[in-house]
């Protein structure tokens, strides 16, 4: 197990290094840079001013040197500063992380609480009207863009309540705080819940075909005991993996949801930073997302081994 952990950690570092190089090179391919934007926005006319801006921002150095500067700073906890706001990058990113984390946590909770039970029901009632109905619902969830669902929620909110849920740093009251996060979380969590439903159903059906289920049934166990005691525990194992993967990939959905609901989270900030060619912010945000994804995947692998005694890493 120790050797596996060391190997796995090494792979994680290698993956993060590769992502850092990939994102760094890709951003340098972007047509134009922050100096072009600042130059045009500042009303400058002398090209020498643009060269000065590039020198001040370190953009006149060679790309390998710029990369070394960035990675060196990252390893020392210095994330540079935002070209757009001229504030330290850490000061811009840190306050936004809890906002996105809360949204992601509520969205994931929503998807698990809705998706898993409905998947179990769909599997137990296979090929009934209820099963077909739930399968259509789950496919609809996978088909609807998260940002469109968010817009529909806004429309419904305007039509029935005369207002839209507006994000606030200081929500008035507990229920306003819950509503503020729940509505966008539901918009992004609906797709995840559809995925959970489908996977839980598929996993339950796989387990219900196993010999030990047939044995339990022949011993006279009730359908409830078979479904919820024997089958569900084993069916949840692959679902745990998907929960972890979804936790990491919710960030993709949060990008558009935070944009629709105007929530100042990390995901929306990434898009704004890209539009501004704010290299330090984009690089740091992408690395943050990569670290979160890689860490969650590792944690899920360890959890999987802990839950399923058949899995032994490094054996």
């Amino acid at each position, binding site marked *: 197990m120790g050797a596996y952990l060391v190997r796995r950690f090494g792979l994680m570092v290698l*993956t993060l290094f590769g992502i850092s190089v990939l994102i760094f090179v890709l951003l340098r391919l972007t047509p134009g840079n922050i100096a072009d934007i600042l130059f045009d926005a500042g009303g400058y006319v002398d090209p020498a001013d643009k060269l000065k801006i590039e020198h001040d921002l370190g953009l006149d150095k060679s790309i390998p040197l710029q990369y070394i500067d960035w990675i060196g700073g990252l390893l020392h906890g210095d994330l540079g500063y935002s070209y757009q706001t001229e504030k330290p990058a850490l000061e811009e990113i840190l306050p936004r992380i809890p906002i996105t984390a809360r949204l992601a946590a509520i969205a994931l909770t929503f998807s698990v609480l809705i998706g898993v039970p409905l998947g179990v029901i769909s599997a137990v009632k296979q090929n009934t009207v209820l099963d077909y109905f739930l399968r259509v619902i789950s496919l609809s969830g996978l*088909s*609807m*863009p998260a940002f469109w669902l968010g817009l529909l929620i806004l*429309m419904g909110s305007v039509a029935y309540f005369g207002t839209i849920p507006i994000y606030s740093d200081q929500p008035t009251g507990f229920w306003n705080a819950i509503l503020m996060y729940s509505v966008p979380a539901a918009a992004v969590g609906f797709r995840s819940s559809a995925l959970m439903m489908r996977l839980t159903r598929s996993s339950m059906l796989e387990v219900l075909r196993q010999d030990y289920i047939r044995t339990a049934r022949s011993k006279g166990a009730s359908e409830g005991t078979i479904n919820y005691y024997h089958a569900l525990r084993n069916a949840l194992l692959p679902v745990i993996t998907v929960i972890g993967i979804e936790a990491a990939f919710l960030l*993709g959905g949060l*990008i558009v949801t935070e944009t629709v609901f105007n929530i100042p989270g990390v995901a929306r900030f*990434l898009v704004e930073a890209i539009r501004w060619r704010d290299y330090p912010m*984009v690089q740091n945000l992408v690395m943050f997302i990569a670290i979160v994804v890689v860490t969650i*995947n590792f944690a899920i692998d360890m959890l999987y081994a802990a839950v399923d005694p058949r899995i032994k890493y490094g054996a």
Partner: protein
Amino acid sequence: MSTLDFNAELAAAGANVRGRWGAVRFFIRRFPLGAIGGVIMAVFVLAAIFAPFLTVYDPLSTNAAASLARPSAAHWLGCDFMGRDVYSRIVYGARISLAVSVGSMLLGSSIGVTLGLLSGYLLGWFDLIVQRFLEMMQSLPLLVMAIIMAAALGPSLHNTIIAIAIPLVPYVARVIRANTLSLREQPFVEAAKAIGMSERRIALRHVLPNTLAPLIVLATAQLGSTILTESSLSFLGLGVPEPHPSWGRMLSESAAEYVRTAPWLVIFPGLAISFVVFGTNLLGDALRDLLDPRQRS
């Protein structure tokens, strides 16, 4: 060795039919939801191809007098803030979605199949390096990768296709590699080697055709994902630029300002996206059930 033998696959799925129309009738009976998905996809493709014949208005022409016009006999789905007919823009938008989804699937699959086949067949250091690179690419959510690629390449139809194709490569490559690993151990491959066939010929003539089934299932399943990704990119302003009538861009333009005053600008483009992706998901599920032997009871 046989390539993807549809008659054999249909027989294995329980069909007892002859001819192409018999196969279609079997598919409709056995997989009614898949047939519905196929019809939806057919409507989508035909709308894209015959857009000029299905619309009266130019999707790009503006008309200040018709700004924010409600749905009516003259404008079936209303007009946007520039007086452009929404129905025409949705029908022509199908061309954009079709071009981007098919283009990115073809490009991503070509690269993915090549990498997966080589990786699974050659193994060794090449496989190790390729797999680490693909894992690295898959460490980021698909939309995040697409956003970064789109930003790096710049907004255009071609760049949007590339931006969506590249993140698809790891998904295709992994499936093809897994299939190749099992196929290379098959007796027919050993027999081909025994008679002196070159490795390249074996890989292209025998191994590659037998990876078609999972590729078809994956491609159909990912088609919906590419349409969603394109609409998300366009919604964020990073995808297909003006004047192309992209569904995602239509939603972006109407997002905050017209939710209350012109809800048709939000409802219809979103319905178009959802409808088409729903169709691809239905069809993809049916094809998976048909072609995946583990799904057959």
